[in-house]
């Protein structure tokens, strides 16, 4: 996956979890929780979706890496770059 594909994957997950949020306004460097109505349960859903969709385990100590879109991509890209998306 490319960086852009990783970003889109995270965006897709958030959009599935919080279908009422308008994600087109997202600012990649800002805290996701400040921008959208996301709580700790939602972040655990993001982690579970990453496991379900990409077979990727995010250990609890790394949850803080998902605080913004930019930090999520920075954390996830090295772990997903070899993942082949089925087109």
């Amino acid at each position, binding site marked *: 996956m490319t960086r852009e594909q990783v970003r889109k994957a995270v965006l897709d997950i958030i959009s599935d*979890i919080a*279908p*009422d949020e308008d994600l087109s306004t997202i600012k990649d460097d800002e805290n996701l929780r400040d921008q959208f*109505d996301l*709580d700790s*349960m939602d972040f655990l*859903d993001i982690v*579970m979706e990453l496991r*379900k969709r990409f077979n990727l385990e995010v250990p609890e100590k790394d949850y803080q890496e998902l605080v913004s879109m930019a930090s999520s991509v920075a954390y996830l890209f090295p772990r997903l770059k070899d993942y082949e998306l089925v087109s």
Partner: protein
Amino acid sequence: MNYDVIIIGSGLSGLAAGIRLAMFDKKVLIVEKHVEVGGLNSFYIRKHRTFDVGLHAMTNYTPKGVRGSPLGKLLKQLRFKHDEFRLCPQEISEIRFPERALRFSNEFGLFEQEVAEQFPAQTDGFQKLLARIREFNELDLDDNQRIPSRRVVESCLSDPVLIDMLYCPLMYYGSASEGDMDFYQFVIMFKSIYMEGFAKPVGGMPYILNLLVEKYRNLGGELRMGAGVEAIEHQDGVVQAVHLENGETLTADKVISSAGNVETLRLCRPRLVEESSLEIGRMSFMESLFVLDCMPKEVGYDRSIVFYSTEPRFQYRVPEGLTDVTSGVLCCPNNFQYPKPASEGMIRITNQANFSLWDAMARSDYRAAKKEYRDRGVNALLTYFPDFRDHVIYVDCFTPKTIFKYTGHINGAVYGSPRKIKSGLTPVKNLFICGTDQGFLGIIGASLSGISMANLHVLQAEAKSEYGRI
């Protein structure tokens, strides 16, 4: 055939738990003994009319975009858009006591203003109570302190009439215990009724239930109707099998039961606990439904919901007689902001009732008593409201006996046992409780109960203990 999880009961908590588990690819089966889903919030059909049971109104209503609300959490966890629930907010509701009335709506400001006007001497105390309510974390699953709410409320307010008026809707809409409720339950109810508010979905309970069932099935969840559980077999503290009334035996790694705590423990074989050590709920209700040939507003009923007492002091307890008509809840389902008005008008009256007395009656007496207490209930309502009886074209009525028959909850206790199991844990390691006996109340609360128990005990059971807190 082994399931990851078997869920007992297809009420809101069971369906919500099922959706969460199926969403994360668990092999899950819901078994329901009735022929309809919904449990305590279901519906029934008579003469081509659909009547909701349980759903006077959904509490906890917040509009789209309100952050951190229970409704918002529910929608995200089950992945629905707010619009999909098709919720129509109430107009104005009221608490009506002799010579006193407090109106409230989905704007909390109205209620604060009414209290200030009607009880000016209590204004500071009321604000103090609100501060206590706002700062309290009622959703902490680990907080097992039992603080009687009256102690807290009476430390803030001194007027017994205001205290009774505040309690009346909270008790009617969610108290399993008589006389008083735990403070955390008081806070849940206070927020859900006064600070958030009421709404009804277009299409009523059948619509909401169908939405949940459809989502559950699309995610691969299995649902079996008419499948009552005969026994939960366990050995060395672990569930071995679930035996159905039809003789079938099913196995699962975990079982989540919404049948009620005592009801679930009674299903366990061998028996686990002394019956006498269990707190069994007793609060139940009689409800009369009147279909009108006009809209309620045309006969002088302009409120969405009215909680009333014809006596100066309000009592919440199992009545000594069959039904206590001196207090009740009046619901006018038409007085919600529907995009299109319903084709028929309806008035519903709910009164406290005694399960044992209703249950003991012979069939012919039972029918006559239903009619008698329905008439008494209307007569009591006429203390405050105009007579609507000339406009009634159809009447139906259910009692605690009916509730027990269709839900299996002992004593027809719609709010379950006064003793809530917040953790959902039972003496059996892989058997958990969700629903009304786990402790979250109302339609949104019941759904959140299923969600939090599925999260806590299945999805994140090993990894993260704080999951499931909401």
